[in-house]
């Protein structure tokens, strides 16, 4: 069935809720409205207000309430309306959700999912374009998943819901309705922590995740014309991070670019490069490169072009690394 990312996510939620009545959704405007992006559309009607819960405007409470529900044996799926509004919940996420299992040496666990749209490129107001995924990726005890396509979104969300650990599920807002693809109607899973080999190639490894994937593919197609063969990896889960697959690829190609929507400093790309440069040191034929946003606050739409990564930037970087 053809689905875009929104309908694929909706399908994942509906299937899982159908199969497991310990699952409940909570967040701002997730009910009648179906969330501001309509990911939860129709679910309240179908599963009732007890299982699709419109909460007051309180992000810290949403995270904490989900924590308690999970501790009591439910499988809550919380929605933060945008990543930029998840910051009030960081204390609960860092101080409780990530640690409850370790703090209690396993007496209590917090199997929950916190979904949120993230990323720029949707011409939005301030705070609606954040990509601070490395805040989450650095917290031990959390898993952080970022799908890049409708099918990936469905399979990864189902895995996240079934996972015994808390998962931060970041949905690239820009890709919600960017394209559709064939997606299985039934449930299926995609393992957390395994990257996806999007395309094999010999000359250079390009790694990305989320909204960067379609742009990376544009760029790699364009350099193929000039004879550069790219190996493309979609990281899919940034925590745990499948650096093994990336390192294996770099050992083969000798060259690597990490494409990251977020600003440069202390992002996920830097972690990957630190691992690569340590473990693929002798294989590297050129300096590992990053293509990232500059270290500035995401500009409002009129200035976004100075921030957002486009295919030219990636292509130029490929040419630079190849010709090193």
């Amino acid at each position: 069935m053809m689905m875009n990312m929104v309908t694929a996510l909706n399908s994942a939620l509906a299937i899982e809720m159908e199969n497991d009545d310990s699952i409940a959704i909570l967040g701002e405007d997730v009910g009648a409205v179906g969330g501001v992006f309509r990911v939860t559309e129709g679910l309240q009607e179908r599963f009732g207000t007890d299982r699709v819960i419109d909460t007051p405007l309180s992000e810290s409470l949403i995270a904490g309430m989900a924590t308690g529900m999970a501790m009591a044996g439910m499988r809550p799926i919380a929605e933060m309306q945008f990543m930029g509004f998840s910051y009030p919940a960081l204390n609960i996420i860092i101080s409780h959700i990530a640690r409850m299992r370790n703090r209690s040496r396993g007496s209590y666990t917090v199997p929950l999912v916190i979904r949120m749209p993230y990323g720029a490129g949707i011409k939005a107001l301030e705070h609606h374009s954040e990509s601070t995924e490395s805040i989450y990726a650095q917290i031990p005890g959390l898993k952080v998943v970022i799908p890049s396509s409708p099918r990936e979104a469905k399979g990864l969300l189902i895995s996240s819901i079934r996972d015994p650990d808390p998962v931060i599920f970041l949905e690239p807002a820009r890709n919600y309705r960017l394209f559709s693809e064939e997606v299985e109607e039934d449930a299926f899973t995609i393992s957390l922590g395994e990257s996806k080999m999007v395309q094999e190639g010999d000359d250079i490894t390009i790694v990305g995740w989320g909204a960067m994937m379609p742009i990376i593919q544009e760029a790699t197609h364009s350099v193929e014309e000039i004879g550069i063969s790219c190996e493309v990896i979609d990281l899919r889960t940034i925590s745990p991070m499948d650096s093994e697959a990336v390192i294996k690829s770099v050992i083969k190609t000798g060259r690597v670019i990490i494409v990251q929507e977020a600003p440069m400093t202390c992002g996920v790309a830097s972690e990957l490069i630190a691992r690569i440069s340590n473990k693929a040191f002798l294989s590297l034929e050129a300096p590992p490169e990053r293509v990232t946003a500059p270290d500035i606050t995401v500009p409002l739409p009129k200035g976004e072009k100075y921030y957002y990564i486009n295919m030219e930037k990636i292509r130029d970087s490929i040419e630079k690394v190849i010709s090193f």
Partner: protein
Amino acid sequence: MLLDDYNPLSGRMLTILDQDANLNEILMPQLDSAVVEKAFRTMVLSRVADDKAVILQRQGRMGTYPPNKGQEAASLGPAMTMGDRDWFVWGFRELAGLLWRGLPLEQYYLGWMGNEYGNHYDPDLRITPTSIPVASQYTYAVGLAYASRYQKENTVIFAFTGDGGTSEGDFHESLNAAGVFNLPIVFIVQNNQWAISLPRSEQTASDTIAQKAIAYGIRGIQVDGNDILAMYAASEEAAEVARNGGGPTLIEAYTYRLGNHTTSDDARRYRVEEEAKEWEARDPLNRMLKYVRSREILSEKKIESVWEWAKTLVEEAAHKAETTPPPSLDDVFRHTYESMTSNLKEQFDDMKKREESQ
């Protein structure tokens, strides 16, 4: 004192000019007709500018926009009582008040068109930038109030949020601290009955927003937010109390969002249209109009002309905003720090080269 007579436990809401434009002469604030005229003009301008913004958005000429329709009195009343050096701390739905304060409409438009220069206010206006993270602005309002007293400025801070905003931790921490420090702040909650799709009754189980003041040992009052005179009177008293060292007040402006939450929203998904219809009968602008007519503050001809005047201003402002050049690369980088760090400079130079080579 109004704040005593209408304290949150009184069970009464302050109305001076009711929805049929009946006037409570005893409580009526003393306003000379020039002021009333200006208030009327401002409300009209706000309404016309707001409608225009919705159209601009629909035409792809503006970004997501939160309509103000129906809430004009709630921000205008307080704005009318602000002193020159007082602070106007807004959220994102206070257009009428901002226009009274002197915010150039083109700058307002520019912000919603997605340009940071929309927030590049003349510091003398003492308006803080738009604050999108709901209720977070209340925390810095407390700081402004603290500084006001420390610097012996004798100013009052007027801080706005919505009914949804009252559920945020920041609302609580701010009102509590303002109470403890006895600071000169007027907290105005525009209770427009909805927070996107969540009705007021599901936002909090308290009967009124005003009674939340009791948790902080501060004054509270529920005011008919569509009644410009009541909003004026309550704000004036609260500001005076604050200026005289009497501490903060929470004003619940009981009003209604006649439009969608934003231009991306479709209110029909979650509320019955009759509700909005009913509230249209209580439209603050109509009420003002009736008042202006009944008191003969303006002739019918003059009233007509106010709309014309507003339309002209709005068109000019839209034009100015639209013809403002987009931010340059320099704009986008330069204000991260007072001076660019070397890392940033390197990134800037790189982008500059890219730009020039294109």
